[in-house]
């Protein structure tokens, strides 16, 4: 039975496809639910039965370690039966289309499908063909909503708020779903967002999203409260986006001298996995006074528990 307070807050969407679709009250609802789970995750008995009897399928078309394990753990802690599909051995490799896979899984009556796919919009397509809720765990370069939500929760926990903060997102913005979801979410929550990237890795018309663009990292980090670094894919070097790792590190790697431009109490974030010595100085990454990368991973489980709970019918 739904309690009175449960009735008062409701999510506006059936699926979690992207931050773009969420309202501010949706976001606040998810973040407040997630906050409840932080304590649970730190306690001895981490398992509850909120999703007992429910089936969650993790459908990962792209390799992922932390997102997949985070979703798996989140589902299990809520008491759901979690199945992770190994795409390498599945019919997809034998030429089955995404829609056929969706129909097949749908016939098994899952309550939640968590999808990671290399093509932008794949989860939108999937969501049109299944009856259960679809949670986007990253689609192409479009969105990675739970990453943005866990980043926002981490910032809130560490800084007490998001509103009014100046936050820099640095690196390969062009290919980054994390950047896009964070731009939508941090804008929505009232932060000022600076985007720092070499022009080759900056998407077209990004300024129309209400952010400030910089190709000079020091200028972009000026007076920032948060410096969010993105992973640089190695293949970018082979396609003339960039000249070399060492030049990228020189101009866009987070080093102590660049971090000096940010506020004294600025914190460093990274969605992982990190390339030490390419986008971030290894000592900075491990500096417990500045780096909140481990907290991001920890709160990631809580945020995903909240999302699974809220979007499960």
């Amino acid at each position, binding site marked *: 039975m739904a309690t009175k307070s449960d009735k008062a807050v409701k999510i506006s969407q059936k699926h979690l496809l992207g931050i773009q679709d969420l309202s501010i009250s949706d976001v606040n609802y998810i973040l407040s639910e997630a906050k409840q789970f932080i304590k649970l995750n730190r306690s001895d008995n981490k398992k509850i039965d909120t999703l007992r009897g429910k089936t969650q399928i993790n459908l990962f078309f792209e390799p992922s370690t932390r997102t997949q394990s985070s979703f798996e753990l989140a589902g299990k802690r809520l008491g759901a039966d979690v199945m992770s599909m190994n795409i390498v051995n599945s019919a997809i490799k034998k030429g089955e289309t995404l829609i056929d896979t969706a129909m097949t899984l749908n016939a098994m009556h899952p309550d939640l499908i968590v999808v990671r796919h290399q093509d*932008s919009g794949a989860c939108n*397509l999937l969501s049109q063909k299944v009856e259960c809720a679809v949670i986007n765990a990253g689609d192409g370069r*479009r969105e990675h909503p739970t990453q943005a939500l866990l980043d926002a929760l981490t910032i809130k926990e560490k800084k007490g708020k998001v509103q009014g903060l100046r936050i820099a997102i640095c690196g390969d913005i062009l290919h980054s779903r994390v950047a896009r979801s964070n731009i939508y979410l941090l804008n929505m929550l009232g932060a000022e967002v600076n985007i720092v990237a070499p022009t080759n890795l900056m998407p077209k018309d990004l300024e129309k*999203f209400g952010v400030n663009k910089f190709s000079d990292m020091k200028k972009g980090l000026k007076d920032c409260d948060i410096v969010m670094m993105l992973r640089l894919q190695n293949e970018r070097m082979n396609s003339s986006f960039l000249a070399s790792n060492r030049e990228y590190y020189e101009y866009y790697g987070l080093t102590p001298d660049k971090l000096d431009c940010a506020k004294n109490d600025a914190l460093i974030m990274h969605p992982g996995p990190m390339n030490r010595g390419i986008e971030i100085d290894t000592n900075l990454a491990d500096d417990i006074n500045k780096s909140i990368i481990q907290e991001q991973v920890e709160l990631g489980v809580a945020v995903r528990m909240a999302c699974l709970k809220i979007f499960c019918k």
Partner: protein
Amino acid sequence: MKKKYFLNANIIDPQNSLDEIGGLIIDEEGKIEATGKKVNEKNIPSREKYIDLKGKYIFPGIVDMRVFVGEPGYEYKENFRTLSNAALSGGVTSVVTMPNTNPIIDNVSMVDFLKRRGRDKSKINIFPTASLTKNLEGTNMTEFGLLQKKGIIAFTDGVKTIQNTRVMSRIMNSAYDLNSLIIQHAEDFDLAENGMMNDGIISTKLGLQGIPDVAEKIIIERDLALLEEYRCRYHISQISSAKSVATIKEKKQFLKFSTGVSINNLSLNENDVGDFKTFLKLSPPLRTEDDRLALVEGLNKKVIDVIVSDHKPEDEEQKRLTFAKAANGSSGIETLLSLSLELFHNGSVKLNTIIEALTSNPAKILKINKGNLSIGNNADFCIVDINKPWVVKNENLLSKSKNTSIENKKLQGKVTNTFVNGEELYKL
């Protein structure tokens, strides 16, 4: 065949500068005997039955310069019979078919096959193109002379562009010697690589790889620079951006060539892609509203000569995929005229300009005696109720493939009858 008399029609025949209320007489051999205001109730034999069109329009049969047919190799997408039915329902009586079949139309033996199939299965006039280069590889040119003798009307790599400048210059020289028409799909491959839609705010939002408009402009500028040195019959298949319109406008002042545009780019913009609608994944891509308006202006100013349907039938299996994996193109031959009429109804383009771009202009570029109502010519024409409202429904399309870019769109103006060689082959 009996003589046919049509009276009280609005006749538009741009090639003969005809735009008046009058009639049309077709003789016993299916040829045009008379047209215009001189054909009226008073001067036709009183014993003859006539059809009173009561103000409906008569246009010359449309000449569509860019049509993909699935024969050979992709018959499940479209064959000559289904293409004919779709074309006729849209008033199209002549089509230029693209060579992107399986196998590719790049040698003389394929042309014989095409002509035989076209003759046996098609009710409309088929003008096949062959590829510019063997196997569409962009390296070795095909036998323009021999292919032309077999009945090839023009040369194009269809969905592909000649990237190599040296190859392009040699193609132009050969085309000059043999008086061949070269049709280029203008897109720099490296700039457009893996691109799926216009490079801009929508591609950034959807996380899709963009195709910058400069990819089109750079090939147009290169080709036109070559054309100054190597004069030949050169036609740009379709353009999509304001930048291309500006370049072409400038070059047309001193160079002779022609330009087409897809009705999709004249009528739709990148916002129509919406939530990953794969039927709107087109090549060239839909661009911004400013680009669309520049194309409309280009049509008005005669910078653009031809409107094409860019009819590219694709079955569901090629479209029910993620945007990245879906095929390019939309099925559009049967909505070409009605969608073009939208530009007339909303006041953007004069009716005469639209009909010219659909009939006499493509015919002149192709050097064929089609797209007009000249006396003695085969009576290929359509009768159009220019105000009739209708809604595009993919289940009603006659094309074998239902991938229309304008599903559920309300249109005004519908072909009610289409004639080829004086014979009524379509009736609403």
